């Protein structure tokens, strides 16, 4: 049984990664299991300079999911390179840095630095809904995505994954923008913009008023978008959105994802990601699948 996959040149022992912002830089989860069991780790969204994040409340529970507006709190790339990267490199797992900025120049500057680090790839965050400037602002048009991807491509030799926002009218054209800009892969979906109101206070629960919806509630939207993008673009997909077990992961792979990420699922059980690896293996046994890569995009439409 072979669970190895290759995501845009990144070799992974299995397709299970952990989504940016749900796993910190790995230390917290290493208390529970050996991080080497994962195919890869996508780091917390990292910026050129440290970022303090949004005012609390930053999260709130919703039906089978949650809203968050953390606001990219992170210690900055320099701190990451000195303190967190050496820790992550102790494990036999791919390390992919989620990179975010507020201007094209910032993204380029950040990726120049990332290009010099011992990392396996970069996930370009063009889809964070919780910061005022940048991120999603670049991510919601074909031209915006193509432009920033091509600028980053010029300074980055490592595998480049572009993370897409689902808060657009045509996800396929956005994915095309990443492909045409020179991305090696796309990851989707980031969170769906949402809002929750405290009816006693008559105010939104989140201090930022709106936040990104994640968890099983968004899974069918994510699966549909992964399928659409797989038909429209010719680059591999890192699929995510509400995955909490092996069955969910298989669903994304059948829809066209080469690898998957566990996001909010990490919060409800620290072992969700490693249990997902086991769940995938059980599915392979059940259906006598020798090579996991063989199932990618094999959904038969009605």
């Amino acid at each position, binding site marked *: 049984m072979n669970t190895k996959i290759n995501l845009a040149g990144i070799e992974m022992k299995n397709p299970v990664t952990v989504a940016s912002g749900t796993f910190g830089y790995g230390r*917290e989860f290493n208390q529970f299991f050996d991080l080497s069991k994962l195919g890869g780790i996508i780091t917390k969204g990292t910026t050129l300079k440290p970022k303090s*994040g949004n*005012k609390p*409340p930053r999260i709130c529970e919703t039906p089978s999911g949650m809203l968050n507006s953390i606001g990219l709190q992170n210690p900055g790339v320099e701190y990451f390179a000195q303190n967190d990267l050496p820790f992550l490199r102790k494990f036999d797992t791919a390390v992919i840095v989620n990179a975010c900025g507020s201007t094209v120049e910032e993204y380029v500057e950040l990726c120049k630095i990332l290009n010099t680090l011992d990392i396996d790839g970069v996930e370009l965050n063009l889809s964070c809904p919780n910061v005022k400037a940048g991120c999603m602002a670049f991510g919601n048009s074909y031209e915006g995505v193509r432009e920033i991807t091509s600028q980053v491509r010029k300074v980055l030799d490592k595998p480049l994954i572009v993370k897409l926002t689902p808060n657009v009218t045509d996800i396929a054209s956005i994915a095309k923008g990443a492909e045409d800009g020179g991305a090696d892969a796309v990851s989707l979906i980031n969170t769906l913009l949402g809002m929750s109101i405290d009816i006693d206070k008559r105010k939104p629960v989140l201090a930022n008023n709106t936040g990104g919806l994640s968890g099983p509630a968004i899974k069918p939207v994510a699966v549909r978008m992964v399928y659409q993008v797989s038909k429209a673009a010719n680059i591999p997909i890192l699929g995510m959105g509400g995955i909490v077990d092996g069955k969910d992961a298989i669903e994304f792979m059948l829809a066209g994802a080469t690898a998957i990420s566990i996001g909010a699922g990490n*919060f*409800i*059980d620290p072992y969700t990601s490693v249990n997902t690896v086991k769940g995938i293996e059980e599915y392979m046994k059940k259906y006598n699948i020798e090579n996991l890569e063989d199932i990618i995009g094999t959904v038969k439409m009605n």
Partner: protein
Amino acid sequence: MPIQTYSELIEKNKLKDDIYHFKVKSEEIAKAAKPGNFIEIRVSDTTAPFLRRPISIYNLDKEKGIVEFIFQVKGKGTEILANKKVGDKIDVLGPLGFGTFKYENYQKIAVIGGGIGVFPLYELSKCAKQANKQINIYLGFRNKEAVVLEEEFKNVCDKLIITTDDGTYGETGFAINFVKRDIEKEEYDCIYACGPLPMLKAVRELAIEKNIPCQISLEERMGCGIGACLGCAVKTAKSPKESPEYWHVCKGGPVFEAKEVEI
């Protein structure tokens, strides 16, 4: 280091219409936990409700390996939890929080609790009492019906003052007023507090004014409970307005030095 366990519910008591006292068996958590720590409970193995419920630890029996917690039914999640039966296995993550109550260096302490915030103060008071500290406890409740655990707290302190907002039981008024009354003559080395935000703000102000060390246990909407999601942010006191600095209740807390956080 926290662990995730399926802990057996070995005893369940209903303290009030909506307040439950649970005892679960978990040797590892009981052994590792400190006063001020909390646990997170996944009430259902489905994804609804989705997140774990953070609940403070009320009492630890380290010899028998028992963790006790008390919670109020507030919504769907706590309602499901309240319906668990003795013998059920409960998905518990803990002990959580690196910021715990520190009492070793103080001799004479004041403990202030309000409403359902009194629960985590029991383990603190018990440990401090065992360490021969002198403890005065002030517990404030809305009214007589809301008063809980009077006997239990009485056994772990030198003096217990119960107050009710409406004067239907004990002293009349907020607990903080009686701390203010006693503070000059008692010369407390440290004040500990947990309860509603207005109470914590008043305690913090008083402690800063009188220059007395003060440790407060905070709450914030929480996700993972282990420091990964950065959801439960609390602003640090020293951070400038234009670039606020945040710590997190689940990691830096839940217990903080009062003067170091802005609430």
